[in-house]
């Protein structure tokens, strides 16, 4: 009797988790729980992803015909808003604000991030920024490209630059606060025994991302503010009429935006380290090298911005230095790719959906990275600059890399976030569709760029039509590949089979607590006694 009465409430207690502990919209909008904020972020960035994706569909339709289907002006606004929304409102917050927000406190063995209220504030700033930008979209959009280059955005602007720039400015502070929270959490909130050399590599890569967010984003903020002053006063420091220099804007912009490219890939690399290790059932090969390569990328990312200005009035000696440094930053990225491959070597590799996305990431990121070297070399960049080769290159890194990693991570931790499994067959099918659609969309763009088709034009010579039609066909397949997971993931919330605490038999603190976790993650602070990725024989840990 005693054991029965003792047992019953314990089962009831174990069913209380962060999702059902409170109900109603207030319990979400005023939450300071990092897991709930992560869910808020997942919903918001998914919305923005589909808005940005819809614009991509529209301008890919435009490019079916050599002379274009929409007006040139409409096309300019579509690709600009696609870039602004995807970069600032999807890619930058994609993994840090969602998966890392959810996982970092759990992975380091803490109850929450160091500043829970600042974490909520960052979500509100994101939403305000998103509304401002959507206001610009509804009023007619921006035609400057996502880079806001002066004088397109100042002297000659004829679109809603102020609203969009202010939206990006506000969202930038959301990014800064997220980075600040991660840095302090990793430094000060680690559980006893969780030394730096025992941190999961996902934490390392998001820590490095946090450094970039904190050091880079303020420079973007002040640059956009100066741009706003310039537009309000109709005279300013980027205005050549009074001796100002538009190229200064480019320097300041890329001082943030090149490191920001690594904000958009480092967290993805962290996800891949976790997935590859789990589904190879091996410790990540060369843990220290992978961890420090994240830090190396964070540091080097700040000294390569000049490769965006090779053909924009920069002395040739400066260009040579930037070219060399851009080559150097490829080394830590390559270290990661080699180490993931070495992790799989002689491992017990299984082909679950997250691993499929990880394979996709490694292959596509390698292509994206190697073509980056073409663009880092001075001589080839002069020819390739401003062509579709560049577009293809960064989409291989951003979409083939980061979005693949985001999808992989979302599937990997979906049972932890929701307590439900997703349908296995559908998810494998969707992963395949995404891979095929992606390559069909962007590989032709390498060829187009190599043949000399410039980016950002609504029309093109007729001989490029076949490749453009291929690319548009690929984009529609890719779109379907993103809609399928959206449907089955929502379906799985109610109908998916219940997941146990550790469906993958994975190592790591997050798999030792219930799925979904309780509000404070751990009943008592865990004490860490082993290295990360301490994988033993499979049957011991699965459950």
């Amino acid at each position, binding site marked *: 009797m005693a054991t029965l009465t003792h047992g019953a409430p314990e089962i009831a207690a174990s069913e209380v988790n962060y999702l059902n502990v409170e109900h109603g919209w207030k319990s979400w909008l005023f939450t300071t729980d990092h897991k709930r904020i992560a869910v808020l972020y997942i919903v918001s960035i998914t919305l923005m992803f589909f808005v940005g994706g819809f614009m991509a569909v529209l301008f890919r339709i435009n490019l079916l015909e050599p002379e274009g289907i929409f007006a040139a002006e409409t096309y300019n606004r579509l690709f600009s808003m696609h870039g602004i929304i995807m970069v600032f409102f999807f890619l930058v917050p994609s993994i840090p604000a969602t998966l890392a927000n959810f996982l970092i406190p759990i992975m380091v063995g803490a109850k929450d991030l160091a500043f829970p209220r600042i974490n909520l504030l960052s979500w509100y700033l994101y939403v305000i920024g998103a509304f401002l930008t959507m206001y610009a979209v509804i009023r007619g959009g921006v035609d400057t490209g996502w880079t806001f280059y002066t004088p397109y955005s100042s002297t000659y602007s004829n679109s809603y630059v102020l609203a969009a720039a202010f939206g990006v400015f506000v969202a930038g502070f959301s990014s800064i606060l997220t980075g600040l929270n991660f840095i302090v959490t990793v430094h000060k*909130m680690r559980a006893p025994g969780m030394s730096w050399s025992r941190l999961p590599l996902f934490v390392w890569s998001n820590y490095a991302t946090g450094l970039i967010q904190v050091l880079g984003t303020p420079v973007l903020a002040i640059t956009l503010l100066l741009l706003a002053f310039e537009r309000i006063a109709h005279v300013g420091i980027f205005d050549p009429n009074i001796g100002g220099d538009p190229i200064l804007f480019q*320097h300041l912009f890329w001082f943030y935006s090149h490191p920001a490219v690594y904000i958009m890939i480092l967290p993805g690399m962290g996800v891949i380290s976790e997935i590859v290790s789990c589904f190879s059932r091996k410790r990540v090969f060369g843990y220290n090298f992978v961890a420090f390569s994240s830090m190396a990328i964070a540091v080097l990312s700040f000294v390569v911005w000049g490769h965006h200005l090779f053909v924009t009035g920069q002395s040739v000696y400066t260009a040579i230095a930037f070219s060399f440094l851009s080559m150097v930053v490829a080394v830590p990225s390559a270290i990661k790719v080699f180490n993931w491959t070495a992790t799989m070597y002689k491992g017990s590799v299984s082909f679950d959906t997250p691993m499929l996305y990880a394979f996709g990431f490694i292959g596509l990121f390698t292509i994206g990275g190697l073509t980056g070297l073409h663009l880092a070399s001075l001589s080839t960049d002069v020819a390739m600059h401003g062509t579709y080769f560049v577009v293809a290159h960064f989409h291989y890194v951003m979409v083939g890399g980061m979005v693949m990693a985001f999808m992989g991570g979302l599937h990997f931790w979906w049972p932890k976030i929701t307590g439900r499994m997703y349908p296995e067959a559908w998810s494998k099918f969707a992963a395949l569709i995404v891979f095929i659609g992606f390559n069909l969309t962007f590989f032709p763009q390498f060829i187009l760029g190599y043949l000399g088709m410039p980016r950002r034009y609504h029309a093109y010579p007729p001989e490029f039509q076949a490749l453009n039609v291929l690319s548009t066909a690929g984009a529609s397949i890719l779109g379907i590949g993103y809609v399928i997971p959206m449907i089955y993931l929502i379906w799985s919330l109610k109908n998916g089979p219940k997941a146990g605490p550790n469906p993958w038999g994975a190592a790591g603190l997050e798999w030792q607590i219930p799925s979904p976790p309780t509000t404070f993650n751990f009943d008592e602070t865990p004490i860490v006694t082993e290295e990360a990725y301490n994988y033993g024989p499979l049957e011991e840990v699965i459950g």
Partner: protein
Amino acid sequence: MADTVVPAGPETAVEDIRLKHHFATSAQQMDADTLGMWTFLITEVLFFGGMFTAYVMYRNMYLGAFASTSQYMNVVLGGTNTAVLICSSLTMALAVRAAQLSNRRHQILFLILTMIFGTAFLVIKGFEYHAKWVEHLVPGFGFQYEPAQYAHHAQILFFLYFAMTGMHALHMVVGLGLLTYLVVQAYRRVFSANYFVPVEMIGLYWHFVDIVWIFLFPLLYLIGHRR
């Protein structure tokens, strides 16, 4: 017996409220707050850094024009403001010390003195801005400049002047708001030798804003003043 136990209760309860739920110890909480503030100040350095970069670039390009603007800068008011801010930093430091020593009267006194110095700075700055407006030295709003050959490039300097001192003044206004909050909290006896982190953090912020001015004053006011 029960009466003797009760007083201990609220005291420990107050301690628990200040220690937020997700920290293990108050030392950990203080460490986290301090690191968070320093990290925030680094972002501020980079925020102002963008403007300093623009300043350095154009000063090298247009040194003559930049030096000629010094005749319009009021060094006396600027210098007075520098002194005022340094005094405010001293009183801020003393306020932090008073909080650490649980001296509520001194703490409120020094916080209010800091606010008076801060307000004085903004008032003096307001007079300077007004003078610039009267002399048509606001870029984009009927800018006129003598000597005429420097007019274009001097406009860049004045753009930077208003952007940099304006952002600095905005930070002062935010600082005054934070100090008001501290005065109210100090009045409510929140701070003591056991709990003074907010005073110290806002103090750090205040010193940072002061240091920005220490750089702004010579860079903007003294370009043409060489011996």
